[in-house]
């Protein structure tokens, strides 16, 4: 690519991504973009997968997504992507829920409704591991996230795996039981801001402006002063709930309000372990593409080392910009 001044960022509704909407509405993003003399368009997309597809096809320069989707969609399509900001990891936001009283082991033989090949699918696989079950012990039914709540009210749906705000909606119904959630695999479902590596290399100002804006938003929304409450109320309304509901969702999200925490997480050895598990899961499900001979087909670069093929690095965890936020260099 080349240097340019107009950029597009796509986001979808999820507790950890609502700050982008607030940043847009409150003018914080414009402020930071102006500072670096660029122009950033923030676009909300209703359908999560569609937003990543658009990013992969080149329609967006930056998009929010989870670590697994970053590997299986853009990276597997040969689009070299960089995780510029680690916003949070799911700490209970994703869950396996059964109808009636029971335990995880009872899931054997049931239909499980979830968004197939998403992090929910991954979470289910990890959950099944803990009770020595295999995926073939259940029957996975692909169900659109927008309809999971309605689906759960019907009789033929007995088990679901999904994320917030859907989890809290479902848990509000009588006769439901959360049998596994992401707090039992902390740090494995990570929410990222991903930027096209080439675009980023040619336009470092984009990374700086986004990072600067993000941490200003983080600072604003944290705590219980009037400004923070107002910010979180706006986010709550945009995601279709109220402040209490949104705070409940945040409670099961490990937000990295401080850049330092995010950088530490980024640099730790755990990240590369997590990515190796994700890569193996993705390979088993054919998500790495037909060319992939094994889970290590695609290289993943982290500060603690490279997982997989060093000659085919397509996903990079680069803490440089978050580090600038710590160092006040933005």
């Amino acid at each position, binding site marked *: 690519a080349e240097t340019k001044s107009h950029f597009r960022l796509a986001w979808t509704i999820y507790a950890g991504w609502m700050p982008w909407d607030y940043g847009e*509405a409150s003018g914080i993003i414009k402020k930071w973009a102006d500072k670096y003399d660029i122009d950033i368009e923030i676009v909300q997309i*209703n359908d999560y997968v*569609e937003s990543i597809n658009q990013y992969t096809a080149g329609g967006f320069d930056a998009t929010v997504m989870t670590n697994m989707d970053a590997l299986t969609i853009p990276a597997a399509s040969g689009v070299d992507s960089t995780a510029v900001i680690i916003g949070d990891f799911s700490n209970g936001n994703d869950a396996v829920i059964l109808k009636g009283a029971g335990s995880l082991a009872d899931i054997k033989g049931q239909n499980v409704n979830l968004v197939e090949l998403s992090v929910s699918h991954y979470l289910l696989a990890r959950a099944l591991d803990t009770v020595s079950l295999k995926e073939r012990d259940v029957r996975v039914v692909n169900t659109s996230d*927008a309809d999971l*709540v309605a689906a759960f009210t019907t009789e033929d749906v007995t088990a679901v795996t999904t994320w917030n705000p859907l989890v809290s*909606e479902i848990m509000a119904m009588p006769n439901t039981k959360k049998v596994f959630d992401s707090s039992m695999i902390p740090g494995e479902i990570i929410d990222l801001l991903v930027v096209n590596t080439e675009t980023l290399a040619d336009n470092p100002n984009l990374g700086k402006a986004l990072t600067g804006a993000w941490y200003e938003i983080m600072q604003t929304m944290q705590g219980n002063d009037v400004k923070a409450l107002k910010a979180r109320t*706006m986010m709550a309304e945009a995601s279709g709930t109220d402040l209490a509901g949104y705070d409940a969702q945040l409670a099961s999200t490990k937000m990295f309000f401080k850049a330092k925490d995010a950088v530490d997480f980024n640099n730790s050895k755990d990240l590369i372990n997590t990515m190796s598990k994700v890569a193996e899961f993705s390979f088993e499900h054919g998500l790495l593409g037909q060319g992939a001979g094994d889970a290590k087909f695609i290289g993943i670069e982290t500060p603690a080392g490279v997982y997989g093929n060093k000659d085919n690095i397509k996903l990079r965890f680069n803490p440089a910009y978050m580090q600038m936020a710590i160092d006040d260099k933005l």
Partner: protein
Amino acid sequence: MRLMNSKPSRSMRLALNLLPFVILLVIYTLASDARLLENPSDKLLPAWSSFYDAMQRMAFEPSKRTGEYLLWADSAASLQRLLLGVGISALIGLVVGVVNGMLPLIRATFSPLITAISLIPPMAILPILFIVFGLGELSKVMLIIIGICPILIRDLQLRTQTLPSEQLLKAQTLGANSWQIMIRVVLPQVLPPLLSAVRLTLGSAWLFLIAGEAIAATEGLGYRIFLIRRYLAMDVILPYVIWIAILAFVMDTLLRLLSKHAFPWYHGKRGSE
């Protein structure tokens, strides 16, 4: 008297017209009451008062976030897309349909292509559409156009081809060339069928609009329904659905009246088509 010969009187007919609606309302009220008695926070069949509250909120209170009156903002956004999509489709349908119908050379070139396109369900190529036309207004309007244009083109082509050949011959004996025949003889005569065809495709247009808005939009009736679907907020969804039905009905009625008013020669003998 044979059942087929017994016709209801005027007042009787009105009563029969309303009967099923009244029954539905009564059933809903009973079912809703029963569910709410069991679980007062049940969202599936809200009480009438919840509908009222929800509509009050959507229509007459500014949204805290954007300061907009959501129902009206959504309606305006959706109607704009719908009218653009349907309007452009009608124009394309008219021009391509008439040209295809009148000129055998053009028809031979484009007719099979249009048939092939019409066989592809637009929903299946949604992902491709978004990639080609982006996620802005264009792709939503394009979805409508791709969805209904082939139908309109084929209908108008058929209408053009089935104009009595006597008329085209007569026009030629009056010294007209192809272009004059197109604009003075064919075009005015296929306008009323165009309006009927548009009325028939309006239903599909709404479908595509909602499908498009479901995936990428920041306002619009379909967007709102899909957004709050996650929370099963029936108190908003049901009134929105009814509102869409009312809008669809009004548009259909307007088109019907327009056709009757503008083309009396078309409706004269054929009754209230």
